[in-house]
């Protein structure tokens, strides 16, 4: 069942795992953007989560506590963004960039002394009897719990945004903060909570990179995953299931190019490793082309700060 040295079953199983970091971060950012906030600091929150998760997991020996640590670290960093944009009404684009620059610096500073350590492993969730089944085993049952968590979160967020009161409030704030304010909702408080949620999700995603994907601590470990997550939110038109699709497509491309590098396809390694970024650009072009303004599904108040003058 091999095609040019690449086994499709393994490929699918690996892409589901490799998509987890960007999937979680993109889901979090979807909620943030649905509430009308553009947080470009995803990369910074992810790498802080990667460091926080790694440190907690190594210190406690528990990967689960590590992921919680990653979530807390990501959320804590996102609160800086929340304070600056929601309280001090700073420009969201500039603040997001600052968050990424700051996060990269802090992670590089805090990560010193953690190089070359192996974190406790996040094992397979289900028993081997299921995971060893042919074809469906590796794809459906062979993963660690975070993979299932990421898929479950997709479903939960889809349901919350679509069918619950909380989701309606979040969408109202993101579409028209004036109207939401007039109805008595605390626009900035709701946005602040969405930002913290987005930070926690990005933090878990980052922790998955350092605890499961790599798994060790390297400077700049997320290498642009946060930016790709931002692109996937646009690709997905701000809808959770499409985020899942986009993340898996992207995970597939990444895994495929890595496999091609190993298999020695004759394509120079440099060109293969730039493929994910080029394909992201291509996808962005296809998704944005011909759909201007509101038709692309962007929340109407995206990126605008709200100040309740009355």
């Amino acid at each position, binding site marked *: 069942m091999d095609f040019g040295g690449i086994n499709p079953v393994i490929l699918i199983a690996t892409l589901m795992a490799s998509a987890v970091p960007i999937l979680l971060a993109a889901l979090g950012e979807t909620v943030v953007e649905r509430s009308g906030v553009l947080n*470009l600091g995803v990369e910074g929150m992810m790498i802080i989560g990667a460091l926080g998760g790694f440190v907690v997991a190594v210190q406690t020996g528990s990967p689960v506590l590590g992921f919680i640590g990653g979530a807390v670290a990501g959320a804590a960093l996102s609160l*800086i963004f929340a*304070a*600056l944009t929601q309280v*001090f*009404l*700073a*420009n969201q*684009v*500039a*603040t997001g*960039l*600052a968050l990424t*620059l*700051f*996060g*990269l*610096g*802090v992670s*590089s*500073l805090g990560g*010193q002394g953690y190089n070359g350590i192996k974190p406790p492993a996040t094992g397979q969730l289900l028993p081997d009897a299921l995971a060893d089944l042919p074809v469906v085993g590796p794809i459906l049952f062979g993963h660690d719990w975070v993979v299932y968590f990421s898929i479950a979160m997709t479903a939960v967020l889809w349901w919350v945004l679509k069918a619950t009161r909380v989701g309606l409030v979040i969408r109202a704030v993101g579409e028209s903060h004036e109207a939401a304010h007039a109805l008595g909702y605390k626009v900035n408080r709701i946005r602040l909570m969405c930002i913290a949620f987005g930070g926690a999700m990005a933090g878990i995603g980052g922790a998955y990179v350092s605890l499961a994907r790599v798994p060790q601590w390297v400077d700049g470990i997320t*290498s*642009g995953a946060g*930016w790709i997550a*931002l*692109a996937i939110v*646009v690709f997905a038109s701000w809808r959770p299931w499409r985020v899942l699709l986009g993340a898996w497509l992207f995970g597939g491309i990444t895994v495929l190019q890595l496999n091609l590098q190993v298999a020695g396809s004759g394509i*120079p390694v*440099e*060109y293969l*490793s*730039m493929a994910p*970024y*080029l394909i*992201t*650009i291509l996808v*962005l*072009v296809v998704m*944005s*082309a*011909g*759909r*201007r303004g509101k038709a692309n599904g962007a929340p109407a108040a995206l990126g605008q700060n709200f*100040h309740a*003058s*009355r």
Partner: protein
Amino acid sequence: MGGQPPKPPGIFVDRKWGPVVLRLEKRPTPSRFWLYATPPVAVILTMIAGGILFAAMGKNPVEVIRTIFWDPMFGEFAFYLRGQLLVKAGPLILIAIGLALGFRAGIWNIGAEGQYIMGAIFGASVGLAVFPTESRWIFPVMIVAGAFGGWLWAMIPAILKTRFNTNEILVSLMLVYVAETILAKASTGFLKNPEGMGFPGSRNFSGYPAAQNAFLYEPLGLHWGGVAALVTGVLAWVLLTRHQAGFQIRLAGQAPRAARFHGVSPARLVVLCMGISGALAGLAGMFEVTGPAGQISIDFNTGYGFTAIIVAFLGRLNPLGIVLAGFLMALTYVGGEMASTNLGLPDAAIQVFQGMLLFFLLGVDVLTNYRFRLAVGAL
């Protein structure tokens, strides 16, 4: 809207006493005082917060701050370090001025790092292609090639934005990663020094006088890149304040709708701003590779393209302010290296310090357009 009688002056306006809270109130016009006071206040706040950070790392905060901000200018080795200031400030100023033009118009080119790399590769390629010429024309041609390389790289997000409405932030950033792989390919492949005994990296321009960006006046650290940075600062200031295009840029940023009625074409503005910032970043890369860096190597780029974003905001998106901000940021680089060798301060601490500066800038900036009022919470 309206209808309410104006509130009487004073703090206690309500008949019922609620908790006293700080309330934000929009100023009728932006405060000129805070426009100029924001950067110094942010720098002081960053020094305080940075001092706390350094103290937490077990360093003497006063000593670290002095090493970073005082010693490069007036310390024991200042005769050498002062020259380093312009070497670092040059590329930062060049890139930041270009970025600021776009930021003013609401066009967010954050891929300057990639344009900087491409400028260096284009400029170096032209020079190395005719190695070892002694023609005096080669350096000017390389300058043009460097600017062209950066311009070309910035045109990709610009054209995609105008044609397909693609987000320029994400595209320009993705292209940084692409440029980094091309840089790796250049230093191990098509620009590799044939006499380099197999080590990665191109020929060194220090052994190639016609194409070298040598110091014009070494004690000040002045090379052609520094000249270009200072000249660009003045030109950009003239453009913004005295020229039609500058007016259009400011108008498009402050009142996009009014700009359209005024006949400003958003597409042309995107191409213009991205093009200028790309060309300037490319120039910076070209001057760097032929001067201070000396050669194309895998780790040639050091993040100037990202730090320049901080410089642009620190200079309040004003070309003359950016020249000052560039020197201040250069101080943190030069002083940071001093602190790293003398006091064992990790390089990453300087990165954190620079990030904090941007946070404080953006936070304090609220005072330009708003003021805080003590008020009794309505109840």
